[in-house]
């Protein structure tokens, strides 16, 4: 084995790794080896890799600090290929697999020699909090430029530039009880609930369930605690009512116990999911859990102490040292100095000592520590320095010594001479902060508990916390608490839980912890070497002090000004220390200062899991008509209309050359005006209305009259909101005395349906009428043009004689042997028949029309041609020519308003408000560009005087604009202030390119103003 492949910090035995399985991996271009069961972090430490990153702001070298989700430094970019890139992965949470390839997220050109560190060194004085705000804010237009360089320097990981080969998924879950965290409290809770028969989900973010039991020194039922955890997990796995989700992080707690869990299904197996049976399984999955009750057994994060130089690689939190030794068989150094405020952290020194490495000293801030672990350390002859703390770490790329001095924590002063202890590792513990992130996602403000020196979660109804998550750090207490909380949760649902026999724990006496956050230094904070609070965001104690001096007193403002707890860190290690420092500077207590709260997500979630399979061709529903296949086969270009795919135009290929859109549309328009065209109009909303009061209802919901519409007749109607503004339009036909068929715009269908129900259910429940959507049931084919009658006559038994089947009539009969309702409704201004058949038979009818249509020049046309033809006739499109601020009168459609109807139909009252009576309202008019070649831009603003000083008063805008092959010119519809009384006037349209178009205000009907062509 070559030198580089040795693992100098790996113990010969111990830990939960599989030494028989050696795995190779690459970090920053160098190859290393680890074992199955390692995390990337434990493997890096085993190999003696000190520097894993450069810091965000000062570009200082950083090493691994923690062993779990709270790790602030070891953020890496994973992936050996471009497509496999994953940014911002915590090395402490990434299981090692063979071939893993990782890069430091920060550091350019590399972490060992970093150009930006120069800025960091110089910047020590020059980059105070708010630096970016202060330096780069002006001029605002330059921010984009600054940002590019700041980001290049800072480095936040990068997204892959190639398509991700993996698939992701969502799974909707429901349960009685969701237990988050499978440590002692979580396991006891899950077992209690599961034996009671409730539907239980237990999730845990680690590779293995068991939490603190996996590296505990304690015995449960006289066997290692991890053994008990294994037994419980085995029992739970065998129960039908339990869903176990390891490698699954509860990332967000949303309303009404909706919790999102992110399961990393194959991320421990490879950088892309390994193929099984030719199928590539889901790489990661979002579980969308709707829980009856939720139990948070999320444990606690150990707080590091804040002392000078505490960011030099080799500074760790005490518990992480124990985890690396006991779980991974890795000792992350040779000589340890441990600085603590409590008993529990002593186990780091005991574990270190047992691993055969030197404990230089335990530095305890308390005057007379005397708990059991303290006595054990004393008994081993470990030096304990009382009433003291590490005030400064020395070293550059690795800790070389600790400066230790007696301190007065309350007075915040160093009281004695500092002693320098040579060491390469400093572990610290300032106590344990319950992990309250999920609880605070619910909006409940955490409360300070002086006994445990930490915030404990406030809980909304249905949420429970147990064990360390609410400050009960004692193992026996935590187990009992988990079980009791589960029983309470189930009782709240009316379910019973089964009492379980808790494992026996040997009682252990722990001494009282003392409050210590920032350690005093001989120099005042602002002049002392940097004391880091938030390692990920490079926030120092001095920065917080400076922020308070600059007047930021609210902790929320301090947080935003300094960036403490921002981003993917979410304040896991640093928040409480930061608040304690702010409290000290402001002369307040921590509860007085309060806490900031946390937001989802707890740890970063890959976009893949958020999106699930709602991507690519399944990104959004595509709605097809019954004729879709024909359109595809005939080369249609499609337009999105809402979720519908509608043929936009049908380009032909003539002599090997495909028509442009303009060419195709011109051809289609002329075909309709001169011969016959056909449109798939199936997307129009169709609502079947039945009941004795149907007619009355229509009279109230439409602006025009419906009292006398006879069976066999159709009528165009306008629908307004009660503010008098047009919302939709369409024709409604009388099928029988109490039976109508309403049509709506394609986009308005669902909205109109809900609108009708709203009025019926909330205002007029006494009306006996029902509405049923039949949009999908009927396929609608519009055959229109001078030859339409001749064509249709060939395949229908309906009498098409102009006198017996008039404009705005409808008839029943057969078309191509299929029962059909045919409506003489025209949206083109030409003779037109809208053929409605049950959609299952539409293709047959459509094809039969084409079989007979060739001799008449039957031409399929799309929505673009439909738009040109209707605009030439001045027919509006609700939502294009209107925008919710346009009344029927603004549209010049007084003829469709029944002012003398007996009821106060929807919209009527508003039409007599002074505002809707103004003469200078924007009114629909036609525009003819002075230059016939010009096609005005839709949305272009209109002015009366192009020479007016800027800003020119805008008096309207273009709503529809096309080139008309019939007119041989461009034309437009527009809304113009007082436009209906400005016929013949010239308006101007200044464009972004500096040109100004002139156009004449004309009527809205450009073709066949008398409407003779549709009445033939």
């Amino acid at each position, binding site marked *: 084995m070559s030198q580089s492949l040795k693992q100098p910090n790996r113990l010969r035995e111990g830990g939960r790794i599989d030494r028989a399985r050696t795995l190779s991996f690459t970090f920053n271009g160098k190859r290393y080896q680890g074992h199955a069961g390692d995390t990337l972090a434990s493997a890096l430490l085993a190999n003696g890799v000190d520097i894993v990153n450069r810091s965000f702001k000062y570009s200082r070298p950083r090493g691994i600090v923690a062993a779990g989700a709270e790790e602030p430094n070891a953020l890496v970019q994973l992936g050996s290929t471009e497509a496999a890139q994953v940014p911002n992965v915590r090395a402490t949470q990434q299981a090692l697999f063979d071939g893993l390839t990782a890069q430091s997220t920060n550091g350019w050109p590399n972490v060992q020699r970093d150009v930006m560190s120069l800025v960091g060194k110089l910047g020590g004085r020059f980059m105070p909090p708010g630096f970016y705000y202060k330096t780069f804010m002006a001029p605002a237009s330059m921010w984009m430029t600054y940002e590019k360089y700041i980001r290049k320097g800072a480095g936040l990981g990068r997204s892959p530039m190639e398509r991700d080969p993996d698939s992701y998924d969502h799974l909707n879950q429901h349960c009685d009880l969701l237990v988050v965290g499978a440590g002692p409290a979580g396991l006891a809770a899950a077992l209690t609930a599961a034996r009671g028969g409730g539907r239980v989900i237990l999730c845990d973010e680690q590779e293995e369930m068991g939490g603190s039991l996996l590296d505990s020194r304690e015995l449960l039922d006289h066997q290692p605690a991890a053994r008990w955890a294994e037994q419980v997990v085995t029992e739970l796995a065998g129960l039908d009512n339990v869903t176990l989700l390891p490698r699954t992080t509860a990332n967000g707690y*949303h*309303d*009404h*116990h*909706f919790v999102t869990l992110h399961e990393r299904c194959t991320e421990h197996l490879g950088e892309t999911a390994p193929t099984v049976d030719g199928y590539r399984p889901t790489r990661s999955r979002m579980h969308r859990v*709707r829980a009856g009750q939720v139990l948070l057994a999320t444990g606690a994060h150990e707080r590091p102490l804040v002392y000078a130089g505490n960011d030099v690689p080799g500074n760790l939190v005490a518990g992480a040292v124990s985890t690396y030794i006991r779980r991974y068989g890795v000792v992350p150094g040779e000589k340890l100095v441990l600085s603590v405020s409590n008993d529990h952290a002593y186990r780091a020194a005991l574990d270190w000592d047992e691993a055969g490495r030197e404990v230089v000293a335990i530095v305890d801030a308390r005057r007379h520590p005397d708990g059991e672990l303290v006595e054990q350390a004393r008994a081993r002859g470990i030096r304990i320095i009382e009433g003291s703390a590490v005030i400064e770490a020395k070293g550059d790329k690795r800790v070389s010594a600790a400066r230790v001095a007696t301190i007065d924590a309350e007075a915040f002063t160093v009281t004695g001479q500092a002693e320098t202890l040579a060491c390469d590792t400093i572990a610290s513990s300032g106590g344990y902060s319950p992990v309250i992130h999920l609880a605070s996602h619910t*909006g409940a403000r955490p409360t300070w508990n002086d006994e445990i020196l930490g915030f404990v979660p406030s809980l*909304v*109804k*249905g949420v429970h916390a147990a064990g360390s998550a609410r400050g009960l750090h004692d193992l026996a207490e935590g187990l009992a608490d988990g079980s009791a909380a589960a029983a309470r949760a189930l009782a709240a649902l009316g379910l019973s839980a089964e009492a379980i026999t808790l494992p026996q724990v040997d009682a252990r006496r722990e001494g009282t912890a003392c409050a210590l956050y920032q350690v005093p230094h001989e120099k005042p904070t602002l002049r002392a070497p940097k004391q880091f609070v938030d390692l990920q965001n490079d926030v120092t104690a001095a920065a917080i002090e400076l922020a308070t001096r600059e007047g930021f007193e609210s902790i929320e403002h301090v947080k935003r000004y300094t960036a403490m707890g921002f981003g993917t860190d979410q304040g896991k290690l640093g928040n409480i220390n930061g608040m304690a420092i702010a409290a000290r500077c402001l002369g307040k207590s921590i509860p007085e200062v309060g806490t900031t709260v946390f937001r989802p997500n707890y740890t970063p979630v890959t976009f893949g899991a958020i999106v699930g399979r709602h991507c690519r061709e399944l990104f959004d529903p595509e709605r097809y008509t019954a004729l879709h296949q024909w359109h595809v086969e005939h080369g249609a270009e499609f337009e999105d209309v809402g979720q519908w795919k509608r043929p936009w135009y049908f380009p032909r290929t003539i002599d090997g050359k495909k028509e442009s859109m303009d060419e195709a549309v011109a051809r289609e328009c002329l075909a309709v005006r001169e011969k016959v065209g056909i449109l798939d109009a199936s997307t129009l909303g169709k609502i079947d209305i039945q009941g004795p009061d149907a007619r009355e209802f229509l009279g109230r919901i439409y602006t025009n009259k419906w009292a006398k519409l006879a069976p066999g007749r159709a009528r165009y109607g306008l629908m307004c909101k*009660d*503010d008098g503004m047009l919302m939709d339009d369409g024709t409604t036909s009388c099928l029988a005395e109490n039976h109508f068929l309403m049509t709506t715009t394609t986009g308005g269908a669902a909205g109109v349906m*809900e609108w009708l*129900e*709203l009025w019926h*259910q*909330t*205002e007029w*429940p006494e009306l006996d009428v029902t509405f049923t959507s039949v949009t999908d049931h009927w396929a609608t084919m519009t055959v229109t043009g001078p030859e339409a009658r001749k064509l249709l006559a060939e395949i229908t038994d309906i009498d098409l004689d102009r006198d017996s089947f008039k404009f705005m009539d409808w008839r029943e009969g057969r078309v191509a042997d299929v029962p059909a309702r045919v409506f003489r409704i025209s949206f083109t201004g030409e003779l037109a028949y809208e053929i409605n058949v049950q959609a299952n038979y539409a293709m047959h009818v459509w094809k039969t029309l084409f079989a007979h249509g060739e001799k008449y020049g039957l031409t399929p046309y799309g929505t673009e041609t439909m738009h040109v033809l209707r605009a030439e006739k001045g027919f509006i499109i609700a939502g294009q020519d209107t925008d919710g601020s346009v009344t029927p009168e603004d549209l010049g459609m007084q003829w469709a308003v029944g002012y003398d109807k007996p009821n*106060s139909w929807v919209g*009527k*009252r*508003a039409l007599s*408000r*002074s505002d809707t009576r103004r003469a200078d309202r924007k009114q629909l008019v036609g525009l003819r560009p002075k230059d016939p070649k010009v096609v005005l831009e839709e949305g272009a603003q209109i002015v009366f005087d192009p020479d007016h000083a800027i800003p020119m008063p805008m008096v309207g805008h273009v709503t529809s604009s096309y080139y008309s092959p019939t007119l041989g010119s461009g034309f437009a519809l527009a809304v113009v202030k007082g436009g209906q009384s400005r016929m013949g006037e010239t308006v101007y349209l200044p464009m972004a390119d500096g040109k100004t178009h002139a156009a004449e205000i004309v009527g809205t009907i450009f073709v066949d103003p008398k409407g003779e062509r549709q009445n033939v």
Partner: protein
Amino acid sequence: MFLIYCPYCEEHREEEEFHPKGQAHIARPADPEACSDEQWGDYLFFRDNPRGIHHELWVHAVGCRKFFNITRNTVSYEILETYRMGEQPRFTAEYPEGKPAEAAAARAEEVERQEGVKA
């Protein structure tokens, strides 16, 4: 994402199935023509925005398509009750714990049915 008890389907459904339709109990004036412009403007445009108990109109759009009302706390997002069109709320700003007489009567009937989600 709320979990909403539909009083017509008689079970809790995901918020995805519903559309919110604004403040509840906004009755259209019986005789709109008799309203002043100001009164009509009030009806059209002005809505309460209370901190605390609020009554809202929702529709079970993907479901039974029925409109109904929700009493919701706008601070905690707790849904105190859902009730059918034409019914009156039991929980109001005046009686945040429920109207005394009705509260007792309602408790007697299926509590679960009317209670909605408490979270």
